[in-house]
């Protein structure tokens, strides 16, 4: 079928390499998988996420497009209605907005609108989040915009293993998935990943660390700072449960509520601005679903309600380890 190696090799790789590995695997496994986007074929993507695909699978299945995000989104939808499984890259999340109409009005609706006659088995990938000293519009984390749209899944990996397993799941999923890759940790950590073609479940949170005193709920790059905070808090004798939400919509409230029922306290951490962020839904769900269990209100540690500053000041916007620790101390004090 193709020359790509399909052995279950295990390698220590970065998150972006895991994305690449999953793309190779998915394309090798299924001829219907095609990849498209700006600079993804010959150049291998500006973050190198698609490197090698064109060489392995040919330009018919790995397509450099003209510069038009609305077109990329819409063409992917058209391909998907024909049973292809397009994986379209938006070079940065900040450039997906031109494609919003297609995402909201068509990708999310095609199955419902046709009562299942047509559907959209596609993945819209985009690197997202700040902290890499990039120019304006290169630091967006507006996952909440997509999470609010019924018919979409919004999936955010936070480790190489989860990037591999969740991307495979997203591609195999028969419905549209917005797959947001935290670029700040594209190369920050490595992990041994087995290229075994095994997908991870969507629609479920991952409990990364068990604890009794407080539940830390987060996703994306913030998982790093959250785990660091949990480490430090452990030294102070505070036992944190750390949950990577991973699929921020539809939201696996059950896992969250079970954890909060146990700990009685929750801190929600995300990089997006606070007002109307996914953290609001998490907090509202916890408030409603665990009212009697809560010993303190769920507290949110987030970006401020403003535009991500240009890079000289971006660290002042991003949630830091100390902010998480501060919030935990606050809810523990109650």
């Amino acid at each position, binding site marked *: 079928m193709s020359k790509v190696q399909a052995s279950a090799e295990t390698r220590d790789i970065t998150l972006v390499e895991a994305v690449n590995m999953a793309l190779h695997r998915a394309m090798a496994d299924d001829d219907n998988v095609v990849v498209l986007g700006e600079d993804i074929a010959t150049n291998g993507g500006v973050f190198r996420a698609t490197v090698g695909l064109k060489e392995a699978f040919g330009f018919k299945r790995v397509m450099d497009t003209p510069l038009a995000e609305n*077109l990329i989104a819409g063409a992917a939808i058209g391909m998907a209605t024909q049973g292809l499984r397009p994986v379209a890259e938006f070079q940065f999340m900040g450039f997906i907005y031109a494609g919003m109409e297609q995402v909201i*009005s068509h990708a999310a609706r095609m199955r419902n609108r046709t009562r299942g006659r047509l559907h959209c088995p596609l993945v819209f990938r985009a690197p997202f989040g700040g902290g890499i000293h990039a120019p304006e519009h290169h630091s967006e984390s507006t996952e909440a915009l997509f999470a609010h749209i019924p018919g979409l899944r919004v999936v955010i990996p936070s480790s190489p293993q989860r990037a591999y397993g969740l991307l495979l799941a997203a591609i195999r999923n028969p*419905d549209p998935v917005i797959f947001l890759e935290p670029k700040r940790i594209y190369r920050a950590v490595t992990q041994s990943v087995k290229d075994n073609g095994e997908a991870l479940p969507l629609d479920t949170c991952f409990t990364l660390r068990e604890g009794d005193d407080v539940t830390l709920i987060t996703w994306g790059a913030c998982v790093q700072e959250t785990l660091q905070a949990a480490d430090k808090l452990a030294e102070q004798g505070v036992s944190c449960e750390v949950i990577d939400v991973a699929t921020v919509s539809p939201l696996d409230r059950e896992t969250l509520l079970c954890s909060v029922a146990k700990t009685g306290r929750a801190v929600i951490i995300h990089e997006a601005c606070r007002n109307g962020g996914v953290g609001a839904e998490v907090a509202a769900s916890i408030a409603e679903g665990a009212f009697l269990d809560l010993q303190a209100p769920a507290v949110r540690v987030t970006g401020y309600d403003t535009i991500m500053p240009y890079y000289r000041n971006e660290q002042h916007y991003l949630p830091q380890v100390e902010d998480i620790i501060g919030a935990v101390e606050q809810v523990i004090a109650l």
Partner: protein
Amino acid sequence: MRQIHEFQVDSTRYLDDHGKPLGELPLQAENTDRVLAAYRNMVLTRTFDSKAIALQRTGKCGTYPSVLGHEVVGTAIGQGMRKSDVFVPYYRDQASHILRGVSLTELLLYWGGDERGSAWKNCPEDLPISVPIATQCCHAVGVAAAMKIRDQSRAVVCCIGDGGTSKGDFLESINLAGAWHLPVVFMVINNQWAISTPRSLQSGAETIAQKAISAGLPGHIVDGNDYFATVEALDTAVERAHSGKGATVIEAVTYRLGDHTTADDATRYRTAEDLKRAWEKDGIKRLQNWLHDRGLWSPDKEKALQAECKQTVEKAVESYLATEAEPPTAMLDYLFESLPAALQQQREQIADRYRGGRA
């Protein structure tokens, strides 16, 4: 040192306003069966249309966009396409849908506010009606790209109004069709109006067909009330797509003879004279005259056809009106392939509430 690059589009008509040939007719005029089938579809479409408007006026259907004035071009599209091609419509393509195999009942269900009106059984690959203007053009090139990726000899026909050609989607899509040599035909149905906005306010371009030049594509104008000019253009463009020669943009010039939709009142923005002049160019009457002159039609045949169409429409209306609404839980049943756990509770709530569980 100055160099000149030249470009052109052509425009074609074969019949005058009364159906008299202006010169030699294309081959398509010899296929009498096909011409007669076309005529029948036009009449059926018009019969359906006035019934749908009547249903809306009597509260039995939702907002409905009349197809009056589009019957000829819609029929030409339906005839020009092959079964395995994919049709990517906008919302005023009733004449084409009928030829593609969409039932009149399905059309009524759609405009009657029922999603099952897009669950087309007979043309399962055609895209559903697209309400957000011009967005369907991007789907069309995606479908065409899929065909090309798979080396299929198939084509896509995509419809859009004159107003729609101002929206980026159209221009981005024709550009991709040109860059990738995609098997797609863009049918611009220039009916002179986008709701109240006249063609002249949409663009300073003398013709819409010349937008094809921006994409390096051939652009053609046809008289959209001239069946022969329109079907010839379709046949040629579809054949071109099938044989791997790439995309075509066709501007079919016609006139929206009705209000924009049943929610619109066109007298607010256009004159009775304009409308009257447009009626004089009506393509159905024109083809009828031609058929008559050729001895292929008669008042009796017309009467029989009218009766037959009326009956067909009445039957569809009956079956439409007899269709019960879906259970409200259906609103969650087609959102995803299978309902995520997160939504199970809401589905139960809907069911409860519907059964009166709440009250």
